[in-house]
């Protein structure tokens, strides 16, 4: 057990901190959270600055520890969130880096790192959410292309995405996990129709996607044909295992903000509320420590985060929702004002126990894959 960072890592931290201090005050104001095209431009602009300053590669090339430092420093400094680049940077990119050919890595990774190309995730379908492997979107081979038809739903950022990590059924006769392939689909291909869906927060953060005989080159397939489920597990392990790491730090920052607000508006004098914030602080601190433990384990075993990510995600998603409930108690009547960031974030947080696998599904994973309990129905 050694929580100290190497000299080299501390130098990296110091340099990054200095850079952030210089750059953050020069950033333009954040766009309206409901305006996705503006958010895309803002998020990509930020990614470009990271790239130009040499920080973009922390996502895949740096050591996991360096990556933790990056997330810790950017979040503590209040740097912009990955936002529209979430899928590209945090799970499509890592998947291509781990499973793609050299040509595929060259084709897609630079665009993600530079913030030129935004990705979305086309996994869920109206009839296939938790039971993802029952997906029906069909891909039929026609020469050097797949012809894809079907429907996807809840596709985050589809409206502003250039590429989609798409799961399709390439063998309808195989058992449900066997006939799936993982494709990179250009969102401007003929036959792709995106219809924004309003979320309960009022924004069009996700969309329905209708695919009508969309031609996707066979060379856009990552992994073997019909081996897409395995590739998907890699994607999901990144999504659950590492994608929320920075957000734990963000929660610690938010909690500090909340405590300051509570001290200002007098709610801090309520011992029940004060203790509630204390408990949350202990939980987020512990989640950060758990992250360090998971990262150390992954670093030692080489690469893809394991089912431990589900342990993390389970507690994190509930703790974060509880943070916004505590915030509502601190804010009082203001908690009902949609003009407050807290209110919008409270609404968004309702998705945390659903998106990227519901808490019920995560518990199944923990019970079956870590504790070895039998698979059930």
């Amino acid at each position, binding site marked *: 057990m050694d929580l100290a960072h190497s000299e080299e890592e501390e130098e990296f931290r110091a340099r990054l901190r200095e850079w952030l201090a210089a750059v953050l005050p020069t950033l333009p104001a954040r766009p309206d959270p409901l305006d996705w095209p503006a958010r895309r431009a803002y998020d990509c602009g930020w990614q470009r600055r990271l790239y130009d300053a040499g920080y973009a590669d922390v996502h895949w090339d740096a050591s996991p520890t360096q990556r933790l430092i990056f997330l810790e420093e950017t979040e503590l400094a209040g740097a912009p969130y990955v936002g529209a680049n979430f899928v590209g940077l945090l799970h499509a990119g890592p998947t291509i880096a781990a499973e793609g050919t050299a040509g595929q890595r060259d084709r897609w990774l630079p665009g993600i790192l530079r913030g030129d190309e935004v990705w979305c995730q086309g996994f869920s379908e109206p009839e296939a959410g938790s039971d993802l492997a029952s997906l029906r979107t069909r891909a039929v081979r026609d020469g050097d292309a797949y012809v894809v038809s079907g429907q996807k739903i809840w596709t985050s950022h589809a409206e502003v995405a250039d590429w989609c990590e798409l799961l399709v059924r390439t063998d309808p006769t195989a058992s449900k996990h066997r006939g799936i392939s993982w494709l990179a689909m250009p969102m401007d291909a003929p036959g792709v129709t995106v219809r924004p869906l309003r979320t309960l927060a009022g924004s069009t953060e996700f969309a329905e996607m209708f695919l009508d005989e969309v031609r996707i080159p066979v060379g856009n397939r990552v992994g073997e044909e019909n081996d897409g489920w395995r590739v998907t597990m890699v994607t999901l392990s990144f999504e659950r295992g590492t994608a929320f790491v920075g957000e734990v730090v963000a929660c610690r920052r938010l909690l*500090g903000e909340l405590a300051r607000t509570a001290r200002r508006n007098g709610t801090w004098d309520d011992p029940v509320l004060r203790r509630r914030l204390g*408990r949350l602080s202990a939980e987020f*601190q*512990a989640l950060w420590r758990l992250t360090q433990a998971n990262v150390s*384990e992954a670093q030692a075993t080489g690469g893809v985060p394991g089912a431990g990510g589900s342990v993390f995600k389970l507690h994190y998603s509930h703790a974060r929702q509880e943070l916004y409930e505590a915030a509502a108690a601190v804010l009082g009547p203001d908690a009902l004002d949609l003009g407050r960031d807290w209110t919008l974030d409270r609404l968004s947080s309702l998705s945390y126990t659903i998106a990227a696998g519901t808490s019920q599904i995560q518990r199944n994973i923990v019970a079956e894959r870590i*504790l070895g309990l039998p698979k059930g129905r």
Partner: protein
Amino acid sequence: MDFRLTEDQRALRKGVRELLARLFGREALRAAVDAPSPSLDRELWRELGAAGFFALRLPEEEGGVGLGLPEAVLAFEEAGRCLVPGPLVATHVAAGAVPGAAEGSTVVTEVDEGLVPWLDEADVVLGDVAGAAPMRSVDPLTPLHRVPGLVGTTGVPDTADVLPATGVAVLLTAAEQVGSAAATTEMAVRYAREREQFGQVIGGFQAVKHLCAGMLVRVELARAAVWAASVTADPVEIAGAKLLADEAATGNARDCLQVYGGMGFTWEADVHLHLKRAWVRAGLRLPAARAEEVVAAGL
């Protein structure tokens, strides 16, 4: 940064686990529970002393083992796992200051949160026990006395309240809680894989699986907190670790009882012993309300 245990730490943990299995296995536990009145096993205490359990953090020049807080935490986790009775934490913390504590020839207890565990059996009692009256302790293996007028401090404490010595005691108690929480998780999972109802093992039922998954989450979170706090020795982090460890130990014992069903409610099953000890430890050494205040004060 590498959060994993070192080779030496793994070896230490394994060694302590084997030692405790030999000194205080399940049969010894049940024999202790069935004894007419709880008495401290001096032989066990001396053997623990001889193995360096109490002197673990004393410098080698002073006859100790010369290890640190992280190693002590691992050892106490193991003690919590098999419910070793006695004022282990007080004696460990007193090693070097109270003669005989390091060797296990002196049993040291302490007034804590208005309670004194093992008062009649201890050789040295730290704190004022005037008027201490025996209670019928909920934990059959932890006799308790109540000290009048001394109920845990209330109000907003200063983080400075959790001073180094106290902090160590709080953290080691938390480590015992983590050990107990891990033990009840393993018990529940084992039982869920054996017990059959409706023609299948109960571990195949999602309601049972989800209880078990929740238990693992509590253990992992609390353990990460306790281990990290043992490295940083930060008072706020220690308070947070105790909070989560108490929750893991008490919550997991309750869920384990649920998984065991009627069997869990029997005296023969060890589940209640874990729950009762967890309650006692949760009531000692910075109970939840004050731990929450300490962490809040750090915000």
